[in-house]
């Protein structure tokens, strides 16, 4: 299994642990992730609210770079990159007007031929849960988590075609295989406040606070995510949430690749746990002690 790897801006900076753990997991499973050389920003939110054609051209440039690697499948971890790359493909494949305009901008011909996969999809559907089960060396039993999917992994459904949009379960299925207990909770796809984190932090504190509260109420000890912004809002802002709403949450926010990595026997320090704001050490100790 070989993919052109598109980390995106966050995985090289604020979400470094996601990149680290993803590479470690891919390495352990024999999945080859070749980083696209000289990739550029996908545009994320700022591009599509500023200039529509720019928001398509930026992903297309990256997809062309992947094509130049002789690769027709891109693997990405960030939900926003995933969304923007897929939307660009949709326009380039089905909309002649967009195709012509963007091809003119990037100076090349592209018709949406490079497919885009989210790493969660690759693990669960391509590599397969049964194969994962065979590679698990440490079942992380005793850990109860709430799997949080955020907004862009499953919506819009015609674009992402990833999971059920009201009751997604890919992460939950993966967690079960590695011995973690995913709780049933109703906030799997509730908004966390997204990019309002900087401009309207009060909105993020309210919405992310509600998510933390619901996860806590349903008995989760941690939240598992598949997107850097989800992780950031729930982790980075947890202290402020505690202060504003007089709570005492100590809920670590893990990337699914980190927990998967642990279960595959990868050393904890290779999975970037030290980069978290809410310290997961205590929780991890309790589950590893139970071995």
């Amino acid at each position: 299994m070989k993919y052109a790897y598109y980390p995106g801006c966050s995985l090289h900076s604020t979400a470094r642990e996601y990149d680290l753990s993803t590479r470690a997991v891919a390495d352990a499973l024999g999945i080859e992730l070749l980083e696209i050389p000289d990739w550029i920003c996908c545009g994320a939110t700022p591009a599509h609210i500023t200039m529509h054609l720019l928001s398509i051209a930026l992903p297309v440039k990256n997809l062309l770079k992947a094509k130049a690697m002789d690769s027709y499948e891109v693997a990405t971890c960030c939900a926003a990159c995933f969304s923007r790359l897929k939307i660009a493909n949709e326009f380039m494949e089905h909309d002649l007007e967009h195709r012509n305009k963007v091809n003119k901008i990037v100076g090349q011909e592209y018709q949406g031929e490079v497919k885009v996969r989210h790493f969660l999809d690759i693990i669960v559907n391509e590599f397969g849960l049964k194969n994962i089960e065979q590679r698990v060396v440490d079942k992380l039993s005793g850990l109860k988590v709430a799997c949080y999917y955020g907004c862009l992994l499953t919506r819009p459904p015609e674009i992402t075609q990833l999971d059920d949009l009201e009751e997604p379960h890919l992460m939950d299925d993966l967690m079960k295989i590695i011995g973690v207990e995913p709780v049933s909770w109703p906030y799997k796809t509730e908004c966390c406040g997204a990019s309002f984190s900087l401009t309207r932090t009060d909105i993020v504190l309210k919405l992310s606070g509600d998510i933390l509260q619901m996860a806590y109420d349903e008995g989760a000890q941690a939240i598992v995510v598949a997107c850097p912004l989800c992780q950031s809002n729930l982790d980075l802002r947890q202290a402020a949430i505690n202060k504003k709403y007089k709570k005492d949450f100590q809920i670590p926010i893990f990337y699914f690749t980190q927990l998967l990595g642990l279960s595959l026997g990868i050393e904890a320090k290779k999975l970037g746990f030290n980069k978290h704001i809410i310290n997961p050490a205590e929780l991890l100790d309790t589950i590893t002690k139970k071995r």
Partner: protein
Amino acid sequence: MRIGVFVCHCGTNISATVDVEKVAQKISRLPKVKFSATYKYMCSDPGQNLVRESIKEHKLDRIVIASCSPRLHEKTFKKCVEDAGINPYLVEMANIREHCSWVHKDMEEATQKAIEITRLAVAKVSRDRPLEKTYMPIEKKVLVIGGGISGIQSAIDITFARYPVTIIEKEPTIGGRMALFDKTFPTLDCAACILTPKMVTVSQNEYTTIHTYSEVEEVNGHVGNFRVKFRKKARFVDLRKCTGCGACWNKCPVKVDSEFDLGLGKRKAIYVPFPQAIPNVPVIDRQNCLWFTSKKCGLCKKICAFGAIDYDMSDEIIEEKFGAIIVATGFNQFDHSVYGEYGYGRFKDVITGLHFERMANSSGPTAGKIVRPSDGKEAHDVVFIQCVGSRDEQKGVPYCSRLCCMYTAKHALLLKEHNKDSQAYIFYIDIRAAGKNYEEFVKKVQTDYGAVYLRGRVSRIFQKGGKLIVRGADTLSGGQVEIKADLVVLATGLIAQADAAKLAQMLHIPYDQNNLFTEAHPKLAPVETITSGIFLTGACQSPKDIPDTVATASAASVKALGLMVQDKLEREPIVAKVNPDACSGCRSCIQACPFSAIEEDEIEDSRLKRKRAVAKVLEGVCTGCGNCTAVCRMSAIDLEGFTNRQIMEEIEAL
């Protein structure tokens, strides 16, 4: 030949764009046209008189009326010339209104076109042949498919006129959906109390034959003479011997979810769907009966004092003839499990309107208590969501189901009556209360029963702390609403039965993209279909409440009786005719005919000295569409009234 041409002004509808005097003048110059005139309104009494007088005075034998579309007044002028002694098939209409004056602006060009159109009509009428109406016998028996309130009402009306009627009902009992309801709006009559007298009336009538647990399998023939094959499924209980004592179902050890109670209650494997069922004879559900699944038990047979249980019964196929068919097959409920936002049908306390009816019903599975199905506790805060499945182009049906606003209001009322301390919250988009006393009813529910109406959609329902959290919008106050509900009732819409398309194809009647049967004309013929002799009533045509259902039932029965009272059926002679000498027996016409009106026949060929296959038109079924004449490569089949020669004459006149 002496042709008379009459050009109509139609007020100014035609004359404003077409110079009608010029048309009349130009046409009068054609050979064979012996009289040409104009008049303001040809269809009026004086207009028709002009035609009749002119025929007498000028000894005319063929007529052309240049006016509107024949769809409007063809019958008028046919009758008019017939009164004056001319065969009604020797009159042609030249459409210079819908095809000319109404679609053009330039007077000179429109007048030229009108002259052309009229000239073609003159050419055709010159080749027309006099035709005589044909007559067919009528089987004096009506078939009603479906034994719900609409089928029952139709049957009652037919028997009142002393004609025999047969009801074929799929379920083991008649009564349909109405038997499930508690109270009906706006009168709050108990559904069973007003339905059961009609059920008794229809079943005890000497002119009615009811076949329950039966389904139609094949329909052949045509109006006046339908041949219907139906399957009377094996009940495994002898209708003649069973007294309905109930000893068998009391003893039966098997309990399964009751379809009648929509899964809220249980029934036995041998069961009667509800206490007032007609016939009050149980049926054995062989999928769950221990005898049929594993040859065990057999208790019901042992305990029956009348020897009515017979495990060896088999399905019966019965074939009968009917003169008219009334389709009264009703509706089904929309399945809300497509809505992930409402729990994909997995939340026990998110139920449908019909479930609520069963609970409110004092003989229902909860003995009339409105409770939460999950724990049986009384429901206090109840959220009602209207338009579930209806008015939804994405996941449901695009139409409005017409009743849900009313039944939701009724439910809010019943909730308050059953649970004094309850509170109803109703999320709506619009309130449709167009019937008699409907608006007053809804208003009363708000003022006297305290129902809170919130205009907005519910975006999500999820479970927390034993309650259902309902999140929606209140657009009138411009805010979000979150309600902790005990119970959520979804006003699911009415959809066609699952086998509606199959039945429509069996009957050769059209149906729309929602599988609702299509009426002949949505305004002027709502209970007829374009297939002669087949009529529609009730929700199988479109969602409707009980008053409208009963109205259409009586309307359909009148249409059927209109056929019954005639000695013989008059048929239009505009039918296809085969010339067997020219027919090669290729069967192209048989395949082309959308009404299955052409059959294969055998004739003795005297020249070849053997039998050969030719086509034969069933004149009773033929609608005169002309498809067959278009495909016939031998010109062996021709359409009376629109023969190849007549059409060619028109084309050559161009």
